[in-house]
């Protein structure tokens, strides 16, 4: 996904204002490969994943809990997952609501699925993410990594 001019500016400003010694050192010699590596490292900012595959969420299921779903709840789960074939977008609040409606509070499946929907954002992703970013309240990604050396270079050369 290409960045807007404003996003390039945001990225360039963030790199130039970054006081982490590794970033400062890489910027000084325009080691864009190192800058990309540093901006692709995980932070402690949690975000919702935008895609969880059926293979991934299958492993989160507790089948005895599936077996006890009533017809309505089972239908919600089928529709949310497109009959267990579609990827789950955990950043979509309505998808999370579907998971919560299908599997009641206190179920292991619900907890597993919501946990599976979280990840630590890279620094590049955190720069643009919105929201709180805690494990309890993950943020939402506006741009997804990884950032390339080309994006880093363009940001620093032109913005």
């Amino acid at each position, binding site marked *: 996904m290409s960045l807007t001019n404003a996003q390039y500016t945001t990225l360039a400003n963030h790199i130039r204002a970054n006081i982490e010694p590794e970033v400062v050192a890489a910027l000084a010699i*325009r*080691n864009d490969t190192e800058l990309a590596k540093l901006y692709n490292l995980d932070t402690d900012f949690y975000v919702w994943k935008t895609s969880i595959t059926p293979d991934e969420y299958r492993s989160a299921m507790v089948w005895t809990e599936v077996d006890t779903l009533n017809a309505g709840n089972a239908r919600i789960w089928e529709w949310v997952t497109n009959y267990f074939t579609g990827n789950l977008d955990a950043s979509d609040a309505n998808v999370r609501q579907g998971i919560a409606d299908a599997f009641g509070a206190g179920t292991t499946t619900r907890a597993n699925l919501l946990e599976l929907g979280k990840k630590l954002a890279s620094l590049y992703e955190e720069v643009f993410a919105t929201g709180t970013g805690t494990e309890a309240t993950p943020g939402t990604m506006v741009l997804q990594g990884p950032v390339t050396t080309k994006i880093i*270079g363009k940001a620093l050369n032109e913005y």
Partner: protein
Amino acid sequence: MALPDTAVVQVGTQIVLADTTDYSPTAANNLGTRTDQIDLTSLANAAARQSAKVDLGASRAFGYNVMAALEFAVAPGDGVTVDFYWAPSNSATAGTNNPGGVSGSDAAYTGTTGSTIDESVLQLQYIGSFSCTNDATTAVQIAQVGTFAPQERYGSMVVYNNAGQALHSDAVEMSISITPLDYVVID
């Protein structure tokens, strides 16, 4: 009259693009005597540089071979590239009849007013890519770039750094050779 039975390639007079203030390579990295201007000093990753307009001569060769000597501030990854393009022109005047927003003068190349470098170089003639090795200054990397057949008398070289690293902070060892490949028919 006997029919010619062999055509061979004869190397013509080299054109060497380098920086007039810096260029002074050691013998091992000397691609030739500088003839035309390009300053590759500190060319950043994702940035491009254009040369002064080159005159290939009223009678030019069918083809030209391009090699380059480059030096990086920090070792680039193996196989990353610096990409070379030719901006042909039918005019000797620097700013006249140039494709892709090329100026005809040694300067940073940023593409046309409305488009990016990536979009603008599509209007140029792609020569080839300098494939990098994992060597930093003071090692000078010399590599084959490609061959091309210019369709106009004049032109400018555009060097697009996609290596993830900036070029070295001086241009003492950096140059681009453009070698005419004259076809000579032998009777």
